[in-house]
């Protein structure tokens, strides 16, 4: 029987209250959202927080909506949004199908009822799926602390395995994805069995002006891509035309730059091969969606 070590429990009533509690209890305190990464780690005594601060009541962190600022729209996803809610969000389907593709293969439906977007990003597991998806989308994380809010690019959010830029007394409030015309996006994952973490996975987002790629994002997970990103492949594609040959070449470049490690999910060369192949497949589907709509 796995039992966590003893800790104190506090329930936060708002973002400011959660920050005040984090400040009061110091670095040995931890936020708990869905608890589906943290509680297993506490059961294994890998994590031993002295105080747990429950943020499940924080309405400010809930909901998916379109936010407008300075004439630009963004899809706003609250940190406490559960996986199931993002999977079923009509706004996500309409604007960023990559998120729906990814959610469909994250864990299983019962785990998805509990796990949250914010918890997933802050856990920063090197095989985590949404980190790759938000990297592809050039998303922005909104972080709040005692001194107010700051915005950090999804590409600068992770500082290493299980590490992020979120400070001890800070909280991830929401993720924003800028909405620009001509976009298409898709996510591809290979897993050993339904509901498992990725052997390798990758997502691509394209913004097209007629046949020209004006902007591109490629996110990879579980393959040791720096910042979950295939930056060299993006640079190769940006500004050029949409062609099958170039998508294959982008996959080759992506595979060249990843640093996978062998584990029970597969050997290094297999994961490297997947990184390339899944990049190409995601680009293909992203382009089809940009040109023909989400059904592609």
């Amino acid at each position, binding site marked *: *029987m*796995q*039992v*966590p*070590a*003893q*800790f*104190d*429990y506090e*329930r936060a009533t708002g973002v400011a209250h959660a920050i005040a509690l984090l400040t009061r209890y110091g670095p040995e305190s931890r936020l*708990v959202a869905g*608890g*589906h990464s943290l*509680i*297993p780690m*506490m*059961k294994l005594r890998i994590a031993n927080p002295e105080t*747990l601060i*429950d943020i*499940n009541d924080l309405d400010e962190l809930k909901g998916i909506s379109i936010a407008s600022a300075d004439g630009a729209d963004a899809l706003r996803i609250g940190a406490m949004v559960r996986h*199931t809610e993002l999977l079923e969000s009509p706004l996500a389907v309409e604007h960023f199908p990559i998120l729906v593709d990814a959610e469909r293969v994250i*864990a*299983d*439906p*019962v*785990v998805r*009822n*509990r796990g949250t977007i914010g918890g997933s990003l802050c856990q920063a597991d090197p095989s985590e799926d949404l980190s790759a998806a938000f990297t592809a989308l050039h998303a922005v994380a909104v972080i709040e602390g005692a001194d107010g809010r700051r915005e950090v690019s999804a590409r600068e959010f992770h500082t290493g395995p299980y590490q992020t830029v979120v400070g001890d007394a800070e909280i991830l409030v929401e993720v924003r994805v800028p909405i620009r015309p001509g976009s298409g996006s898709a996510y591809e994952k290979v897993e050993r069995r*339904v*509901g498992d973490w990725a052997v390798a996975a990758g997502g691509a987002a394209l913004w097209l002006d007629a046949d020209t790629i004006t902007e591109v994002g490629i996110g990879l997970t579980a393959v040791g891509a720096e910042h979950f990103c295939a930056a060299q492949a993006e640079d190769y594609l940006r500004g050029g035309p949409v062609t099958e040959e170039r998508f294959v070449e982008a996959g080759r470049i992506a595979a060249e730059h990843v640093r996978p490690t062998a584990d029970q999910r597969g050997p290094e060369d297999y994961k490297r091969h997947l990184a390339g192949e899944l990049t190409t497949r995601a680009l293909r589907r992203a382009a089809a969606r940009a040109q023909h709509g989400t059904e592609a």
Partner: protein
Amino acid sequence: MQITVTVNGTAHTREVEPRLLLVHFLRDELRLTGTHWGCDTSNCGVCVVQLDGQPVKSCTVLAVMADGREVRTVEGLARGAELDPIQQGFSDKHGLQCGFCTPGMMMTCRALLDRNPDPSDTEIRVAISGQICRCTGYENIVRSVHAAAEIERAAQEVHQ
């Protein structure tokens, strides 16, 4: 700390350690042993209960996180001697053999039918994809859920 959790419509107040998991609160504190406890790692799904109407794995929820919330367990399905249609479906179609996975399966499938009164084979299989059955090969579970859906449809027609 003191918590009050409403389980199957009844409010229960207990003094618990924050580290107590919901599955053990139900089984050991409330003696509701219908909720089973298996892998302890959120993989097998035998511990599934509904928390505010959503199926969750109770081995990965703290009892204190359920304070002030509503939990429904397998004991809350039947009304007196009358089985819930999902129980009747599992009984009619032999949706179980050893029965270890069954409470969790039924709580997930009950929630599925509440949202989707006529699920397809695939929708049922996806809904239970986070739960393991070592006996039935899942075939009879899928049949049981279809049977439950039919029982509910027939009951609706009688009411109309």
